Every structure is written in C-alpha cells, then in structure tokens.
C-alpha cells in the first residue's frame, strides 16, 4: 500500500511541475520539433539535440530536459511517418517499420499503418512511463550503495553492451570508445594539472562537448548525406482512411502488447534504446505470426510490434541515465551532458535531491506522448509537406544553426573551428566504417570513469583486485565478460550480422 501512495505522491509532484504553462509549452515545442526532425530524413535526433543544446542552457534545467526528451521520443513518431510514406526511415528506430509500413501504404492503407504506429507508440509510451515511475526509484535506491569500484564496472558494462549491440566491427567500436575516453582526457585533471594541451591555451579546458557533438553528428552527417542527393516522393494519404476496422484493431492488439514488453526491457539495457527494440520486435512478430510469409508484404503486426517497441525503448532508456548517471545511447549521452552543464550531477541522488526535476520530466513524457497522439494524426498533411522539403534547402539551415549554436555557448570563435574540424573527422570515421556513436559515449563518460577509477584505487590502496572482490562489481564484470564472449562465438556472431542485415 505504501508503495502505491508513494507513487501517487511522486506523480502528483511530477504533474505539478510538468503542467505549468511554461513547461507544457516546452514539452510541446520538444515534441513538435522532434516530430519534424523525425519526419525529415537526413536529420537525426542526435544532430538536432546537439544543435539545440545551447538554446536550452538559458532555460531552467527541468524545462530543458523536458524539451530535449520531447525531441527524442517525438522523433520516434515522426520517423515512422517517413518510413511508411516514402520507405526511408526518418531515424534509426524506424528502419524496420519501413519494410511493412511502406508495403501497406502502397496497398492504399497508409492511413491504417499511420494509425497503428501512433496508437502503438502511445500505448507503449504510457506503459514505459509507468515502468519508470515504479522502478526507477528502486534502482536509484540500490545504486546508493554503489562504491567507486562498482561504478567503474557499471560503466565498463555499459561500454561492452554498446559494443555488442552496435552495428559493424566489434574491434572498431571498442577503439572508438577508447578514442572518446582519450579525447575526454584533454584538459586539466581533478587536481588541476594541465594535460595534452600541447601548450596551446585553447585546449587548456579540454574539448568542448557541444562543438564535438555538433561537428561529428551535425556537420559530419551533412557531408555524408551530400554523397548522393536524392529526390523524394511521398505517398498521399487521406485522413479519412485512418480509422481501422474491428478486425484490424484485434490484429494489432497483441503485437502492440508484445512490442511494448520487449522494447521496455531492451531500452533499459545500456547500449539499448529505440533501435534494438524495434529490430527484436520485428523478428519476434515474424516468429509468432500464423502467416509469416505476409511479412515484408504489408503485415500489420510488422508495423505494430516494432513501432510500440521503439517508443517503449526510447522511454525506458531514460532509466539508467536518470538513476545511475550512465547513458545507454548517444542521445542519453547528450542529455547527460546537458545535465552536467546545468550543474546537476547525474546519479542516484537526482531522485532524492531534485525530485521535482526527476518526476517532472517523467510525467512530462506521458503528457508529451498524449500531445503526439492528438497532434500527429490530424496534422499528417503538414508532415507530408515537411517531407517534400528538398535537402539542398535544409542543410544550409542546419549548418547555420550549428555555427550560431556553438558560438553562442562561450562566444568563442575557436569553438566554431573545433566544430568544423570535428565535422571532417566525423566524416572520415564514417568513411572508414568507424561508427562515431560509441566515441561520444566514451567522451561523455571519460572524466567520470577516470574519477571512479582513481577513487577506487585510493580507497583500496592500489589493490586492483577490488573490482573482483566487491560482489556488485564482480557481477557486472561477469555479465560484461559473458556478453563479450557470446558475441565473439562464431554462431552468434553470424546471427548478429544477419539481424543487422535484415
């Protein structure tokens, strides 16, 4: 009983924060922008959040976080619209939606596919929000007993998970994480000793987080998109045919439930998030289906499952970030960076020390999901117009926003130059098949990880066996080792490649 009354109190605190006119407005701006960028192919949530970070510095931390969160899950909704209507995923979580969603659209059932995706996402978002409400405080409570060594191992596990779940070469993903960690080492250490600045004053404070992420994910992605410029053609859909029949409603119910469950679980995993859940849900639906031959030709379950899963995953991936201070994917890494800039130290204490912030953000997610449901279906016409904006008009705007954005952080032209250099570097990495996402993860965690390492070593007087003697740390390390070994086994390796190839 006490459990429920506590939840009630927390929720009402959250709603009192999230329902202020100001925060409602930022929530709306967030989901609106999120949908817009989700709809636009070639502009992902990472680039957008990086671009908008400087703007949020001037806001209250809670408003900033509400808006950034809105962008992230809004992008999941928008991404599916693009996937269904033009067979191009607007962002990575909706890659599999494109398969069956677009086939449905070709059959004249675009409205049905859009409806399924919106309702599935809303249901999943609601469930995932309640999961956060119920479990995040428990996890945060448990995390309070973590010693520095445990934190170190937890971060290690996060990296391993990110590597295991990443696309492409394991070795390169590992190298990218270490490279990110190394970049974070530039600048003074905890006692203020300068490091790796090669006597140039510009680097004495280290790399600017905003310049790095905007360069790699904003500019780098633009150069990549300009490799081949395509024109896009959207399938027109009337808003009338959005309403499904009873039989269709019944058909989508079970996949939505399964997708929600699967997505929520995978979202919590470090390295997880929206994309993984949608892939897993698609293969699950295919296996559960009575007529799997329909998949790829317009199966409704192939839209309902992954769409629910990607939204559930987007939501629950906030759990490790908010309770442990560990980002599970690059978007969460950016959010973590935003928190740090607002001088909130991420970790288990956020729930107890800033309950207004924590619960406000969590409840705003449900409000945001509701807004998306109400907004998206009637506004589908506007999103279709958005889709037809040619990229040649779009990318100069992105470049300009990046320039002003990065300059506005410190009013320092050097940050702009850093961003340009990071853009080229990001493109080179992409060309060499080195995914830059793990690099950002490493960069954000680098300082924290070093900190925990040094503290663990000081506490144990230099005995490195502390990582193996503390039960929490040992468990985390064993989990990481098992995950790494599993993925290196030839049989599973092959399966992993197949899963990503699909």
């Amino acid at each position, binding site marked *: 009983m006490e459990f429920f009354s506590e939840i009630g109190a927390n929720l009402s605190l959250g709603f009192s924060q999230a329902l202020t006119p100001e925060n409602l407005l930022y929530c709306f701006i967030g989901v609106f922008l999120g949908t817009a960028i989700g709809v636009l192919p070639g502009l992902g949530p990472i680039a957008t959040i990086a671009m908008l970070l400087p703007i949020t510095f001037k806001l209250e931390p809670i408003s900033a976080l509400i808006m950034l969160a809105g962008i992230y899950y809004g992008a999941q909704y928008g991404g599916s619209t693009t996937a269904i209507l033009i067979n191009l995923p607007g962002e990575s979580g909706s890659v599999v939606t494109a398969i069956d969603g677009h086939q449905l659209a070709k059959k004249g059932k675009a409205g049905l596919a859009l409806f399924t995706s919106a309702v599935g996402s809303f249901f999943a978002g609601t469930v995932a929000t309640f999961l956060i409400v119920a479990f995040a405080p428990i996890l945060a409570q448990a995390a309070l007993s973590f010693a520095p060594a445990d934190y170190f191992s937890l971060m290690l596990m996060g990296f391993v998970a990110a590597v295991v779940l990443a696309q492409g070469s394991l070795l390169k993903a590992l*190298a990218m994480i270490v490279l990110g960690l190394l970049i974070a080492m530039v600048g003074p250490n905890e006692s203020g000793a300068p490091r790796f600045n090669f006597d140039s004053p510009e680097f004495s404070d280290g790399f600017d987080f905003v310049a790095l992420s905007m360069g790699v994910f904003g500019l780098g992605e633009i*150069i990549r998109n300009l490799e081949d410029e395509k024109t896009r053609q959207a399938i027109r859909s009337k808003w009338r045919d959005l309403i499904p029949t009873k039989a269709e409603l019944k058909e989508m119910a079970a996949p939505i439930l399964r997708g929600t469950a699967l997505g929520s679980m995978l979202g919590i995993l470090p390295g997880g998030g929206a994309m993984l859940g949608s892939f897993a849900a698609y293969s699950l639906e295919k296996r559960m289906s009575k007529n799997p031959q329909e998949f790829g030709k317009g199966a409704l379950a192939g839209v309902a499952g992954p769409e629910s899963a990607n939204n559930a995953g987007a939501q629950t991936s906030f759990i490790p970030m908010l309770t442990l201070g560990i980002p599970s994917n690059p978007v969460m890494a950016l959010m973590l960076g935003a928190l740090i800039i607002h001088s909130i130290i991420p970790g288990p204490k956020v729930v107890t020390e800033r309950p207004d912030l924590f619960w406000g953000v969590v409840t705003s997610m449900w409000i945001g999901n509701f807004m998306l449901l109400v907004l998206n279906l009637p506004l589908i016409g506007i999103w279709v117009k958005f889709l037809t904006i040619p990229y040649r008009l779009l990318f100069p705007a992105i470049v300009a926003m990046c320039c002003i954005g990065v300059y506005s952080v410190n009013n320092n032209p050097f940050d702009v130059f850093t961003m340009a250099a990071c853009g080229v570097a990001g493109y080179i990495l992409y060309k060499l098949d080195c995914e830059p996402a793990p690099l950002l993860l490493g960069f954000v965690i680098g300082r924290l990880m070093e900190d925990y390492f040094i503290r663990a070593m000081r506490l144990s007087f*230099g005995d490195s066996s502390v990582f193996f003697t503390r039960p929490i740390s040992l468990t985390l390390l064993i989990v990481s080792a098992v995950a790494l070994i599993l993925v290196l086994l030839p049989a599973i390796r092959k399966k992993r490649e197949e899963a990503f190839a699909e």
Partner: protein
Amino acid sequence: MLSVKNPKDFYAGVLLLCVVAVYALGLLDLRIGSLSRPGPGYFPLILTSLLFVFAVAILINGLRTKGEPIGAVPWRAMFFVTAPVIFFGATVKGLGFVPSLAITAIATCMGSTQWTWKSALLTALVLVFFSYIVFIWGLGLPVALCGSWLRSLFLSVGVPATSLNLCY
C-alpha cells in the same frame, strides 16, 4: 608480400596509430604515479596502450581480410560545409552577425550540386531573418549585427556615427 586488402580497416588503423603517437607525446610530460597514488597520466596511459592494441589489430585486419574500397569522397560538399563554418568563426566578430551569417549561408548552399543563385540568396535571407528572431531578439545573444571592421569602414567613408547605432 603484404598488401592492403581492406583499405577501410588499414587506414583506420593508421589513423588511430597517429592518435596514439600524439597521446604518447603528451604523456611524456605527465606524472604516471602508482596504482595506489595514480598521477594525472595514469588513466590516459592505460587508454593509450589499449588504443595502441586495438589500432594494431585493426591494421592487421586491413592486411589480412578482404574489404570494400573506401569509395568516392564528396570533396565539393566537404569544402562547402567546412569552409563557410570556418569563415563564420573567423568573421562573426569582425563583420558582425548579419553579413557573416549571410555569406556563410550562401556559400553553404553551393555544397549541393543542384544549387542556384536564386535559391541560395533566398535561403540566406530567410535564415538570417529567422536566426535574428531566435538568437538575438529571443535569446539575447550578445553579438553585434554588423561588426567592428565594418563600423570603422563606415566611419572612414564618412557615415555619421549616430547612424551606426543600427549596427548593434
């Protein structure tokens, strides 16, 4: 006889080795310390050594396994994305927000192979107006609309100082 069979891996390895070299150079100045009293160089040393191992492994992969070629690089896009950005950084104080951003936007438009003067000018106009509303009017970004170089130029050609108030 060794030959590069997987250029993507090979050059990734080379690139990472260069990074390792830079960090190794930086490490020379840092006290490493001991495990019980780690110095500023301790953790970076571990990381640099790790990266060295990964870089060599990737490089060897590039010599042993077969892989795709790196593919064409869109030099045009690369130039017209980075050069305007550098231009913006270099001139935003001197030329000021409006001229600097306008030139940046027009130059960026040329990165597309389908660009035209008309659409570039229009894009720049919309962008400058929009950014003015959001960043200067809305967020109060402290930057002059037209910068110190232009102001002294205007003064030297005899524009009255009072009309330069528009520059801020």
